[in-house]
């Protein structure tokens, strides 16, 4: 039924140990060719879904079970469901004494493909640490949520596990999260979500 592709060139010797795999296309049998039986099969599948789901919806509606009939998440009404390992908003980690873990090594700023991290370093009072961040801004409006910053960090100072995906604002400045906000010391100004002209 199928015309095998003509062998245009010799198979390289290095492939000799691997036998060529011949792909045969399935040939339509008579029962598939007349289509009606297949239509029937399709109808059986969709009807099964129809009646099973209808029963589930009815069961829910008359209060037999609390489980919803469909798996749909009605997002703005119900909270968004984010996978545990999903890459969500960043947070900066703290040491046990509460100071930021970040040593301002600029690894994340360098690796960031979106160039949305801005770090200004300063001297740390602790000589063993040497450096720390004075300014640490992430522009969420530019971030592509690739997670490279998390991978690059040698201090495990930045993570993307807050589970928060709703970060909209009405102007670009409010999309920038500063160090205190990323550390969780300060809440993002709620006024950011009010339109400002």
């Amino acid at each position: 039924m199928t015309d095998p592709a003509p062998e245009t060139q010799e198979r390289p010797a290095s492939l000799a140990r691997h036998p060529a795999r011949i792909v045969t296309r399935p040939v339509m049998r008579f029962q598939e060719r007349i289509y009606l039986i297949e239509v029937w099969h399709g109808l059986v599948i969709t009807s099964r879904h129809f009646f099973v789901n209808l029963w589930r919806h009815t069961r829910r509606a008359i209060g037999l079970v609390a489980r919803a009939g469909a798996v749909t998440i009605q997002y703005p009404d119900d909270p968004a469901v984010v996978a545990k390992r999903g890459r969500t908003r960043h947070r900066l980690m703290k040491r046990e004494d509460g100071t930021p873990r970040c040593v301002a090594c600029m690894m994340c700023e360098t690796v960031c493909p979106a160039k949305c991290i801005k770090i200004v370093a300063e001297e740390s009072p602790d000589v063993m640490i040497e450096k720390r961040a004075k300014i640490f801004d992430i522009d969420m409006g530019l971030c592509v949520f690739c997670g490279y910053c998390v991978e690059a960090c040698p201090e495990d100072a930045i993570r993307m596990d807050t589970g928060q995906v709703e970060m909209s604002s009405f102007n670009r400045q409010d999309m920038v999260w500063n160090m205190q906000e990323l550390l969780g010391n300060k809440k993002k100004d709620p006024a950011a979500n009010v339109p400002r002209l």
Partner: protein
Amino acid sequence: MALTEPFWTFLKIAAAVGFGLNVAGLLGWVERKQSAVIQDRIGANRAEIFGFRVLGLFHPLADAIKMMTKEDFVPPEGMRLWHGMAPGLSLLFSMLCLAALPYGDKIVLGGHALSLQPLPLSAGLVFVLAMLSVGVHGVVMAGWSSGSAYSLIGGLRGAAQMISYEVALLTTLAGPLFLYGTLDLAEAVRWQAHSIGGIVPAWGIFLQPLAFILFMTAGAAETKRAPFDLPEGEAEIVGYFIEYSGMRFGMFLMNDFIESIVLAGLTTALFLGGWHVPGLAHLHLSQPVFALIGVGAFVVKVMAVLWLLMQIRWTLPRFRFDQLLDLGWKNLLPLAILNTLVTAWAVFLAGG
């Protein structure tokens, strides 16, 4: 009876058209919800009035408001008059079909026989099929008058499809017609009243199963519903109404649904025994009650056929255009002719 004959006829036609328009509006909801339930979704449920959502039943209403308030745009190259007329013409002819369907038997009130069929025509089937065929004018007119090459191609493709399947549709119906021996839809339904061996009702679907399948297939193609919705191709293929917007677009949409209702009505009348309910005759009900139950049975059967059409629509992928014409000319038509010949031979042998 104070009811004069023209008034009674007018009342019946109004009821039939009202039935059609309402069910067509409802079908928009059915389409959304049924597809959602088949695909494990919830479906449109956001339209609400005073906080009531009633399973999304307000969505057809919201659609209507949206369509009516949208701009009714005529392309500058288009022909304004024909462009405006095309959807109305399509809708008019399919609504005329609604009036010829046999909704119920005669009702006898005080020695007065009132037919429950809005237009009791002796050649009702020919009338319905003729009106369905005229629908192709709306398609071509819409394609041509839009002044766009794409909609013209869409219109011609639609015309080719509808004319091809018309042939198969008419040939298919020859078989049942040989059996019933009448073109009157009400008579055809009455013929199906008896039963074979007292068990199986003598409905067209049992006597002419091949014709039933062929008729449903050709009918679905004729009404341009999926899997034969190439003339429309809602979002993927350019169809004949790309230059339409607002309520005129909505009228094409309604027209589709009404054609589906007509097809379902014809199927019910010719193959599913119309208003008959098996075993009801043994209950010895009074005649008007009997007739009214018949009307209910007819409507229920129409709904069942519409459900099946929807189910098919959400099951099968769309045909390619060459597959579509192949199916019509090379498969349906020969089978229909075969069915006709076999039926004619059988009727002849039975001394019919």
